[in-house]
């Protein structure tokens, strides 16, 4: 569980500190993996396969989110030619 917490924190640091939006997305994947590790560890300890089932769902959701997110990045990139998240301020005041 400590491994999962540590991985989660590294992912959060990545999300907050880096400016390249693709790396931010990859840090989000790290966070999701941390959660998965936690689930599998509990599933192993309690000898119940439900944890693994839920982990499979999380992987499926992560795949969907990665696909759509990357599509958004590509569409944005065509308009504004940047992946720096500080410059993506079209919705700012």
């Amino acid at each position: 569980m400590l491994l999962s917490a540590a991985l989660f924190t590294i992912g959060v640091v990545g999300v907050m500190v880096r400016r390249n939006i693709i790396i931010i997305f990859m840090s989000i994947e790290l966070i999701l993996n941390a959660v998965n590790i936690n689930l599998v560890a509990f599933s192993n300890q309690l000898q119940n396969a439900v944890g693994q089932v839920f982990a499979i769902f999380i992987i499926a959701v992560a795949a969907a989110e990665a696909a759509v997110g990357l599509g958004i990045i590509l569409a944005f990139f065509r308009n504004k030619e940047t992946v720096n998240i500080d410059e993506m301020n079209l919705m700012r005041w």
Partner: protein
Amino acid sequence: MGEAIAFYIIAGFILIFAVLVVTAKEAVHSVVFLVIDFLFVAALYASLGAEFLAIIQILVYAGGIVVLYLFVVMLVNLKRPPEAYADPHRRTTLGFALSAAMLLEIGVIASYGYVKPAPALAAVAAPVTGNTEEVGWLLYTSYLIPFEIASMLLLVAMIGAIVLAKREL
């Protein structure tokens, strides 16, 4: 004993590569480290007895999602790296401080809240043996509705990705 050593070694590598993912200067290096990280996580799943999940992790995550990331990184090949100039509005130290606070909080929760849950989820005696069969049994009987919803979600995501990335419709 051997299992514990294996766990610590794999866990160490996972954390090292995770740090490398977050701190690499080039995006492509980050992606490569992410792949290696996922392979180690799959090894961890296999050592915990979840072999189906380990293979699915390699197949879907390492083999599919990260390939997508690599494609996008290469299509977005930039002349000027995004970290080149510092934005005065960004408070990096605040980001670090918040993350440290969160880690502390998670640690506290983990150590105090660790109570063995009452076996309310008594393991349904699936009439099949083997990890893959057990997961499959659960997926198709108790968790059928989430399964169908997940497939709908994937369909919607596919259509969404196509619509977003097409040049003209």
